[in-house]
């Protein structure tokens, strides 16, 4: 398969689409067919709904889908993180049980890592998983869990051994969110959206076969999830709004997008919306203001350079270089871009930056940018943590002296619950 050229692949995709694509069929039925064909996730292994193609060929396949207007498998939300984690660490049972529902869009996921006491220090998780009567019993609290109020399943990191050192006492579970022991409360953000939640566990249950990875190896599994999260957070990713085409399948897709993307509707704004700068500067009559132009140019420079860096990383990956730390650079760059854009948008808006909603002169978009950009340097690992990763892992600088990894977790100082 791997000796296929790009042209071979394009031809094969086109032929398959001519044969099978029909916008009047149902979304789930179509996706089931797509999953069987392997064209939905072409870089996945053949035995699991893929074609074993190099990951660099996936955009090529997507391009052919786009040309044809064909709908792909479900890729929005936390599902991609769940899929990547299950694919890499899951048992056949996990793959059988979950991958299809992820790809058809019928089942949705959330990530249950952060806790009130442990955010940057995810490995400091103190949610308990105790093995009792043949089941894992979960107690504790998670927080900042995007989409947890909608999710069917959660990727749960919990402590199974309090005497082991912190990274060795964690295990990773695939948790059914729809059970009495799981309670979800939405949290309101400074931008007035409520995308994330607090999740409380009171004797929630996980059947033993839904632990993923070895006992005590949860941190290793979580690292895979985080790697994919950071890679996706570079701000270059397309934010899907669904196609405006006519046809049953498009209608179903639009409905799906509206539901799944609801917690993320402000996400484009948190990137700073470099794409709007020139248009906004012209519309606001500030295009000739030299001070404004300087800020717009600086923001665009950063935004484009970040995009090109991400492209370089992707091409290197396509050329078969092993997964590297590029994701961390992209995430930090995204924070710089967002801040530069917020500054430029403020200058463009002038006094209108004091207004919001319909009064801000841009249907509330600018106001939303200004109160959403602070999220980007926190969500998915803070800027400070990204800098630690870059300096220690990419630059091989000396690690911080640690006092939390050399003793049983129960002896490590941590925040009081509450």
């Amino acid at each position, binding site marked *: 398969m791997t000796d296929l050229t790009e042209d071979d692949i394009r031809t094969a995709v086109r032929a398959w689409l001519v044969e099978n694509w029909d916008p009047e069929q149902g979304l789930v039925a179509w996706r089931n067919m797509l999953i069987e064909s392997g064209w939905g996730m072409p870089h996945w292994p053949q035995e699991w709904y893929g074609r074993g193609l190099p990951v660099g060929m996936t955009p090529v396949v997507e391009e052919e889908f786009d040309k044809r207007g064909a709908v792909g498998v479900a890729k929005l939300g936390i599902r991609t993180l769940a899929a990547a984690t299950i694919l890499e660490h899951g048992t056949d049972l996990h793959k059988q049980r979950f991958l299809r529902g992820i790809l058809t869009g019928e089942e949705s996921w959330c990530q249950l890592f952060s806790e009130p006491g*442990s955010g940057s220090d995810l490995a400091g998780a103190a949610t308990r998983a105790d093995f009792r009567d043949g089941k894992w019993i979960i107690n504790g609290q998670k927080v900042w869990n995007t989409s947890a109020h909608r999710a069917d399943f959660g990727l749960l990191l919990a402590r199974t051994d309090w005497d082991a050192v912190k990274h060795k006492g964690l295990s990773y579970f695939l948790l059914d969110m729809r059970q009495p022991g799981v309670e979800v409360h939405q949290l309101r953000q400074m931008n007035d959206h409520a995308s994330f939640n607090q999740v409380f566990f009171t004797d929630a249950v996980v059947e033993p076969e839904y632990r993923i990875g070895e006992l005590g190896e949860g941190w290793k599994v979580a690292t895979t999830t985080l790697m994919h999260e950071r890679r996706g957070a570079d701000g270059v990713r397309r934010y899907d709004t669904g196609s405006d085409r006519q046809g049953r399948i498009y209608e179903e897709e639009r409905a799906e997008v509206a539901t799944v993307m609801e917690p993320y509707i402000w996400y484009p704004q948190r990137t700073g919306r470099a794409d709007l700068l020139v248009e906004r500067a012209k519309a*606001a009559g500030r295009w000739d203001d030299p001070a404004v132009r300087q800020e717009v140019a600086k923001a665009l420079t950063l935004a484009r350079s970040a995009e090109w860096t991400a492209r370089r990383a992707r091409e290197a990956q396509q050329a078969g270089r092993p997964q590297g730390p590029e994701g961390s650079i992209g995430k930090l760059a995204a924070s710089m871009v967002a801040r530069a854009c917020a500054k430029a948008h*403020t200058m463009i808006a002038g006094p209108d930056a004091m207004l*919001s909603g319909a009064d801000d002169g841009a249907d509330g978009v600018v106001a939303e940018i200004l109160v959403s950009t*602070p999220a980007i340097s*926190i969500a998915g690992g803070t800027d400070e943590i990204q800098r630690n990763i870059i300096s220690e892992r990419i630059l091989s600088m000396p690690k911080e002296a640690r006092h939390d990894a050399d003793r049983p977790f129960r002896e490590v100082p941590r925040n009081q619950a509450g």
Partner: protein
Amino acid sequence: MKFSFSEEQTEFRNMLRRFLRDRSPTTEVRRVIETEAGYDPEVWRVMAEDLGVAAIHIPEAYGGAGFGISELAIAAEEAGRALLPSPFFGSTVLAATAIAEAGTDAQKQALLPGIAAGGTIAALAAAEPRGGWNAGAFTATASPDNGSWRLSGRKSYVLDGMIADLVVAAARLPEGGLGLFSLPTDSAGLARRALRSMDPTRRLAEITFDGAPAVLLGGPAAGGPAWERVLDIAAICLAGEMVGGAERLREDALEYVSMRIQFGRSIASFQVTKHKAADMLLEVELAKAAAYYAAAAADDDEESDQPLAALASLAKAAAADTYMQTAVHAVQMHGGIGFTHDNDTQLWFKRAKASEVFLGSAADHRERMLQQWNA
């Protein structure tokens, strides 16, 4: 007294700080911004009647306390620190200063005592939609009408415009000069509309004048020079308010990181946190120095080598940049909590964002500063 405060000034500041800590903690701020008025009339009454806050710089002859801009800026700083929603800035700092600077003796007698007592709330309508606060940007017009005047045009970003009884508006005179006019907000030909402000602690309105009858403050020559002085004092007080807010953000962030543990240790023990905290202190102290110097110069410009406009604009621009930067750092230092509605950091963040552009952007003020600079 440019580089230190007198004992009386320090006592005044402490008294205000105590009062606001008791009467306007953030739980109160959050309650009050959900009310229709947007401020607590009782707190304002006590501040005006018992603490004299509405009257600080209004001359005694007009019912005021006769203090200076330094004292006015101290009050602004404390209000900014507490994020107090109140008519103080719109009525006392902006409108009363305009009346005091432009009005005739009789006009001041008529208008200032009510404002000084706190019972009358006045607002200043100057900038226009998308426009700035420099006099050249005002396009609203005034036309003579039987010995009086009629105003036409639209004003925006009017601080506390919806609760004001009285408005002072800037408009072009027929010969092109600038006039400052006063009129009650229930006048015929005056319509107002609440704007949705990003910062809920600071409410804004749009006011449209359609031949509204108004009184010209002072003579036709008074408006131009008065406006520059009003803008200077407003910029100085806003700078004070901003450094007050920035300092509070800085202190709260420091307190938070000192309590928070990650990786088995206080996050305050990470060098990057310490450096950030040190930078924040540096920036806030620099901005405070500029704000204090400008306020002192407004009371006594004999000593300074620079005109007040340059100092006021310098202080405004410096405070605006510092406030925003401090707010960004403060959110970041709180991590996820800092992005929530329930955490108070966001309240100051929004005030910092609004203050960044209120009365003109930092770039506008740096330009104004250099145009006035004595090289």
